């Protein structure tokens, strides 16, 4: 029987020398699933002593590699002993896990509001908003023009108001089918108008007329 005596930590976990943290964790899990005392695949292959030795080695390997400083020390040791060529060590080759959700770094709210305040005072934008608010019926398209003229995008509104982007989009596209129920819609519109610093009562009334002409 070969034991793990002649293997280095990377070989014990069966990973490449440039494995990422994620791969190390996966390999550790896999190794435990094989060598654990309840594991079917090595049932009765080892004596208790052998098994605990093997598990100890796996644990040691994992804790050495998962910590960045101890891993760097260990890599240096491998290079010094000539087991690994320094050129093979390349952090850039590490594969990083792809994040499931690409979360934007959240925006700074106070500077966001300052930006809108500055915009609202501009003459051009005052004209546009006055023109829109003076209309009896305010459609989603009007809201969109207003928002875009202020240089605000949907993601920013989502960040501040936590109204989902799909709902914001259906409000702006006047997609009556996918709008939430009236009570929610009213509140969303109110929030939306407040963020853009225009008269929220006017926006709510005008918009409701646009989707409910009666």
């Amino acid at each position, binding site marked *: 029987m070969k034991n793990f005596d002649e293997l280095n930590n990377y070989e014990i976990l069966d990973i490449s020398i440039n494995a990422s943290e994620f791969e190390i964790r996966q390999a550790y899990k896999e190794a435990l699933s094989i060598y654990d005392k309840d594991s079917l695949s*090595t049932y009765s292959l080892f004596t208790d002593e052998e098994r605990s030795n093997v598990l100890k080695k796996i644990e040691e390997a994992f804790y050495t590699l998962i910590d960045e400083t101890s891993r760097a020390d260990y890599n240096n040791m491998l290079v010094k002993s000539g087991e690994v060529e320094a050129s093979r060590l390349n952090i850039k080759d590490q594969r990083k896990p792809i994040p499931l959700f690409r979360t934007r770094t959240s925006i700074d709210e106070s500077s966001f509001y300052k930006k809108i305040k500055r915009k609202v005072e501009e003459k051009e934008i005052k004209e546009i908003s006055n023109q829109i608010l003076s209309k009896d019926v305010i459609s989603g398209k009007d809201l969109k023009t207003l928002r875009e003229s202020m240089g605000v995008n949907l993601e920013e509104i989502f960040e501040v108001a936590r109204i989902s982007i799909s709902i914001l989009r259906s409000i702006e596209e006047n997609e009556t089918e996918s709008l939430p129920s009236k009570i929610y819609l009213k509140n969303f519109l109110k929030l939306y108008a407040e963020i853009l610093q225009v008269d929220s009562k006017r926006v709510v009334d005008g918009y409701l007329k646009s989707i409910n002409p009666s």
Partner: protein
Amino acid sequence: MPRIYPIGGGKGGAGKSFITANLGVLLAKQGKRVVLVDLDLGGSNLHTFLAHQNQKTDLNDFLNKTINNLNHAALPTIIPNLSIICSINCSLEIANLFHAQKLKIIKAIQRLPYDYVLLDLGAGTHFNTLDFFLTSNEGIFIFTPEPTAIENTLRFIKAVYYRKLRQLFKQNAFNVIVKKFLDRSNDTSIKLPDIIKFIMEHYPKRGELLKSRLRESQFKLILNQFRKQTDPTLGVKIEKVCNRHFYSKFQFLGNVSYDERVYDSIFSRKIYMAKYPYTPAATDIQFISKKLTDISQVPISVSSKL
């Protein structure tokens, strides 16, 4: 020289005879000349899996010298290209085969004029079973996904491995080293792993020889009676563990699904592969047979120096 696949695996009821018979059928259907040898002496029933009725001549005639060529004991089955050597007429004490008889059988098997020879072995880790298993370096281990079967199979793998090691010691004059080791350790129970360690440490050159000879063995693994709830990576995991902890090579050939119809075919004395050729289990075995015929590497026989 035929390609010899001994099929064994520690536990009874794991499906050694079933796999042997049906693998044989599929290899024969690929146009290869195949002979199956029932070496489960004292517990032979390979012929039942093949719906084979005619047992006029068999291994016994070869052992008691009624015939002097083992090939004459091979009887054709209803499948073209497929022959079988039964051992049903052997005496009741046949399980305790003499050493000389064993060597005679092994030598004769290696001279059989076929493309493939499949040996159906019995359960347990008797020396005879181990030596038959080591007739070729490509033994196939059959196991099922139960703790008891895995326990027995791993034990069988270990037993085969250490038997092989003993053979190598004998063939390559390791006596002196082994003796030295025994002199050193006062412990009366000799452990083979310790001897290997001792050799690797003190005689690196001999150790290399040992390693390379052990590496010639390319064992195969088949997981039989695979059920839905079984861990699908079990076979691969065992392959990995064996490759890591033994010096020999191990290859996992695949899972064979569990199928109630196997019992049907046995009860109705029909060949499973002929009665149910498109069931999951049948396709699994087909896949394995393809894998076996694809292996292009030339087998190295463990010569007759036993």
